[in-house]
């Protein structure tokens, strides 16, 4: 018992617990950012200015047609190289050698992102923000699709009435369309949230030290150097992660159900009608 309390509070385990915070933080940052991306994408797809509409549609359909994980692997390297390339152009203009030398990608040392001299936490933050950005791009496309559908689901009569009252396009959009679209978007967004939760273990593939990384490290057999030698316990660590995710999705399900009830109140939908009958 005492052994376990020591074991579970060792320094490495503290890092393990912290990584749960990392995952929650990722969710907390990604959700609003990708919602913003999605909103932008949906508005772009609806735009009357054709190139913008094409851009919006292209964005959503490309990201949705390709396996997620390909995007995750691709975007992180592509972003990293893109940033380094731009810094290279800006910081060392008189660098004569080509950047792509055969199989290598070489930029001048000043353009490395982050700088090789910077402390460990800068590297971690940099990796983490790349991951957040990638998640936001991918999930933004999905959210754009949901919001686009929701905007089209708002009854046309509502918008026509707004025009008849003399509202401008902009006013109609912000005062009539946006407040009403959420009830139509919520099932889709709720689904997306569940998928987002279940996508977080992919952080591991992006090189962030997340819960999967630590579960693998701590569960593995340790040499004598390590303070707490034990057998292969990875299975228990992963079982714990499984329970964590199950609990998390269950709680989310309940919260989303409550939100749906709240939003349906007084709406001209089947759900709203059912609530009116009940009352």
């Amino acid at each position, binding site marked *: 018992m005492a052994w376990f309390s020591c074991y579970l509070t060792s320094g490495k385990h503290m890092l393990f617990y912290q990584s749960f915070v990392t995952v929650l933080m990722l969710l907390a940052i990604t959700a609003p950012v990708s919602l913003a991306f999605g909103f932008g994408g949906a508005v772009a797809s609806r735009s009357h200015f054709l190139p913008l509409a094409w851009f919006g549609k292209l964005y959503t359909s490309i990201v*949705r*047609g*390709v*396996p*997620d*994980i*390909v995007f995750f*692997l*691709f975007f992180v*390297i*592509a972003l990293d*190289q893109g940033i380094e390339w731009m810094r290279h152009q800006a910081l060392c203009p008189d660098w004569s050698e080509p950047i*792509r030398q055969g*199989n*290598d*990608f070489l930029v001048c040392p000043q353009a490395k992102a982050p700088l090789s001299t910077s402390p460990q936490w800068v590297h971690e933050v940099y990796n983490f923000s790349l991951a957040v950005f990638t998640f936001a791009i*991918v999930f933004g496309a*999905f959210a754009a*699709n949901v919001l686009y559908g929701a905007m089209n689901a708002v009854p046309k009569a509502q918008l026509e009435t707004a025009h008849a009252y003399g509202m401008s396009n902009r006013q109609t959009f912000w005062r009539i369309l946006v407040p009403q679209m959420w009830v139509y978007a919520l099932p889709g967004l709720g689904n997306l949230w569940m*998928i987002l*939760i*279940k*996508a*977080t*273990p*992919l952080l*591991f*593939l992006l090189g962030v030290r997340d819960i*999967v990384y630590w579960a693998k490290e701590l569960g593995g057999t340790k040499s004598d150097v390590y303070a707490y030698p034990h057998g*292969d316990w*990875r*299975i228990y660590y*992963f*079982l714990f*992660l*499984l329970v964590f*995710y*199950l609990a998390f*999705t*269950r709680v989310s399900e309940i919260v989303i159900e409550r939100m749906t009830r709240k939003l349906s109140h007084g709406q001209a939908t089947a759900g709203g009608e059912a609530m009116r009958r009940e009352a």
Partner: protein
Amino acid sequence: MTCGETFQAYALRSLGIGERLLPKSDITLCDQIVLIGSGLIWNFYFAAIALLVGFILATALAVAKGTKSRWTRKPAEWFIFLFRGSPLFIQFFLAYLTFVQLPKVGVEFTLMGVEFGAGTHWLTRAWLGAALVLVMNTAAYSGEIFYGALRSIPRGDLEAADAYGLTGWHRFRRVVWPTMLRLAWPAYTNEAIFLFHATTLVYFSGFPARKQMGDALYYANYFADKTFNPFVPYPIVAGYFIFGTLLIIAVFGLINKRLNRHLPQERRRKIALRFNLIR
């Protein structure tokens, strides 16, 4: 090497046939296209097995969840919750770690001069272990889809079946099951695409690729690591997957047509494609 030679050497590399060493330097576009295409065999294999076996299991799950008896309903509900509520990534890890710890037992027997054998050590190989996880995963997702369809079978159809004196197995086989499939098919098509995309996760979680025999993404990742250039291999994977997705849409569209053939034109259900990501 010319492209023809490359094709001979690497077309079946993912099955262990052909050149043993992967190209290390002077990687040509042809190398990448052939080898990644070779890996695609595994993706098709996993998707086909999971869909075929998962379909049967999913029907059983849906029926079990629809029964009144607690003893059949509860296990089905738990099974579906377990596999839908947790990330596939974690499921792979956990399954692999469990399979590794299983005692190594095997049976061998001779039937008509041919030796057969079966052993638990196969479970640690991707072709069986990962396929098993994918089967159960897709069974849970499609079971939920089928259950929803089962509940929305028109009451008139069931009453007609009763009026004709159909009972038990006959009633299920002739009326309930076809109608359930017809109603569920659009959603099931999306699930199939989604599963096809999910096969890319196999070699990125617990299951190791033995002798570098991996799937499409495994080779793409290999090339991206070797050339430091993600802009070639990942778009190739994406292209292959878009092709595979179109194939699934075509096949499932034909089945959908057949399921709907007795209905008047305007009541046929079209497949509305809704792409999803990570499970």
